[in-house]
């Protein structure tokens, strides 16, 4: 047994050390820096002050944009993803289901940079606007607007929303739907009273994943918002790579992580409640 313990330890040490050195220690550094002061040439001077946190209001626009567009983007993803997940789980033929599912996931694993670039192309002056112009809709400005950012968000994160909802719907006991219709429920009522509540854990998981990733988004607003739609991520890039105000940047990063942790905590409470609800159903 001793030998086996030693072997287990040896197998765990490289990964464990990597996690500690590249994840935990750097995160601690960010936390410590958030209480420091800015050096004359940028960088960090050790100190203990709450000034950086008191100054967070200076980047209020970035927080505001993120806190408006991240939930909005999550909601848009949800509304578009749900019918697709429903179709894949309950309506698509088994023969095509796997392929269709793969086709949803594949874009998520390809470069988000290139996929956002595609929308610069489509929404730019010579893309959709010129098409609309030719059809007599005037020449609307699409690129570098919150709308463009929203499209980019939906485009980038839709797959992440579809998948958990699909899983929840796929696991759903189809006999419940049969029972509901046998007992005289019209389809829409079966959906509202059986399908929708039972798919809520998937909705919650998908929403949380998308929301959390959106909170840290930089690329989509940078490319499709043209510097006018500024997220927390854009503020962070500015603070660390341009103005080199590390302590303030660290404070912004800490604030971002705190908002995310609150979201995860809310999610965990929510799903626990729904898990409780599901137990009641299975008891029936």
């Amino acid at each position, binding site marked *: 047994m001793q030998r086996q313990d030693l072997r287990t*330890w040896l197998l*765990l040490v490289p990964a464990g050390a990597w996690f500690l050195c590249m994840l935990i220690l750097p995160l601690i550094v960010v936390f410590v820096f958030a209480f420091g002061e800015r050096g004359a040439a940028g960088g960090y001077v050790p100190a203990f002050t709450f000034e950086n946190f008191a100054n967070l209001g200076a980047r209020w626009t970035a927080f505001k944009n993120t806190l408006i567009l991240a939930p909005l983007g999550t909601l848009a993803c949800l509304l578009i993803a749900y019918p697709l997940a429903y179709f894949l789980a309950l309506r698509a033929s088994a023969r095509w289901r796997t392929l*269709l599912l793969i086709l949803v996931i594949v874009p998520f694993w390809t470069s988000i940079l290139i996929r956002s670039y595609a929308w610069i192309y489509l929404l730019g002056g010579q893309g959709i606007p010129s098409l609309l112009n030719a059809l007599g809709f005037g020449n609307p400005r699409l690129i570098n607007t919150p709308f463009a950012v929203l499209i980019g968000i939906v485009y980038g994160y839709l797959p992440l929303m579809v998948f958990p909802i699909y899983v929840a719907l796929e696991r759903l006991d189809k006999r419940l739907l049969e029972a509901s219709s046998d007992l005289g429920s019209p389809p829409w009522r079966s959906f509202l009273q059986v399908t929708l509540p039972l798919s809520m854990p998937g909705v919650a998981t998908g929403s949380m994943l998308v929301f959390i990733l959106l909170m840290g988004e930089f690329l989509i607003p940078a490319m499709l918002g043209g510097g006018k739609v500024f997220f927390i991520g854009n503020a962070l890039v500015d603070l660390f790579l341009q103005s080199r105000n590390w302590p303030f940047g660290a404070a912004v990063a800490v604030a971002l992580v705190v908002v995310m942790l609150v979201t995860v905590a809310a999610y965990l409470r929510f799903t626990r409640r729904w898990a409780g609800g599901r137990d009641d159903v299975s008891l029936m």
Partner: protein
Amino acid sequence: MRIYAFAVYLFLYIPIGVIALFSFNAGRHASQFQGFSVQWYGKALSNPFVVDAFKTSLTVALSSAVLATLFGTTAAMALQSVKGRLRIAFDALIYIAVMVPGIVIGIATLIALVTLFDWLNPVLAAVWPLADGAPKLSLGYGSLIAAHGLFSMALVIIIVRARMAGMDRSLVEASADLGATPWGTFRQVTLPQIFPGILAGFLLAFTFSFDDFIIAFFVAGSQTTLPVYVFSSIRRGVTPEINAIGTMVLAVSLLLLVTAQAILQRGRQAG
């Protein structure tokens, strides 16, 4: 319902298709297609900045994926027999590595390493025995591989573990009962069963690193990866050359993803 699904698939694939289509455009302008040509591919591939960035991306993706697969697989195997506090701690680490956004990982790695290097470099210079001066530690390949390897390792551990969960434990016990050494059991029983998971983990890790922009943006130092290069070129203006590079990048990820998926599917059928 079917029409709706079809529309969503169009929404997902038309932009990618447009990029690919216009990468073969003979003309310069985005508005009209002026005939088929591969000139932009030629131009991209003879651009030394593109070739350098591609080599950097390839080196980083390969190294980080190999290291992550190796250490991730060993960790996943060891975790099978670990319980209690250590198990909880490790699960928490994996969870944090996956959930903390890339931008925070990038920032944290940047300031931690720069601070460490600022502190180490004078020490190194003072104790360096040779006359030609001490090497200066700085951000570059090392930091890129280390930062990408972190996420990739979490990914490999998750995938390999999922594969192990579906594995038949009785085979391992049977092998041990029949007198095989632990190494023999691993090589002849465990490894063939989890190999699809390992390979898929490797391919996904490679894809992640090859496509990553945000972490590389912070920790690349003097190096330029392909996504970082593409990002800075887009800021200078949209050209068909970027379409050609983008199409190649998409093609690489698509190829790897399809391979990973095929391996996982076949493994599932066999297992």
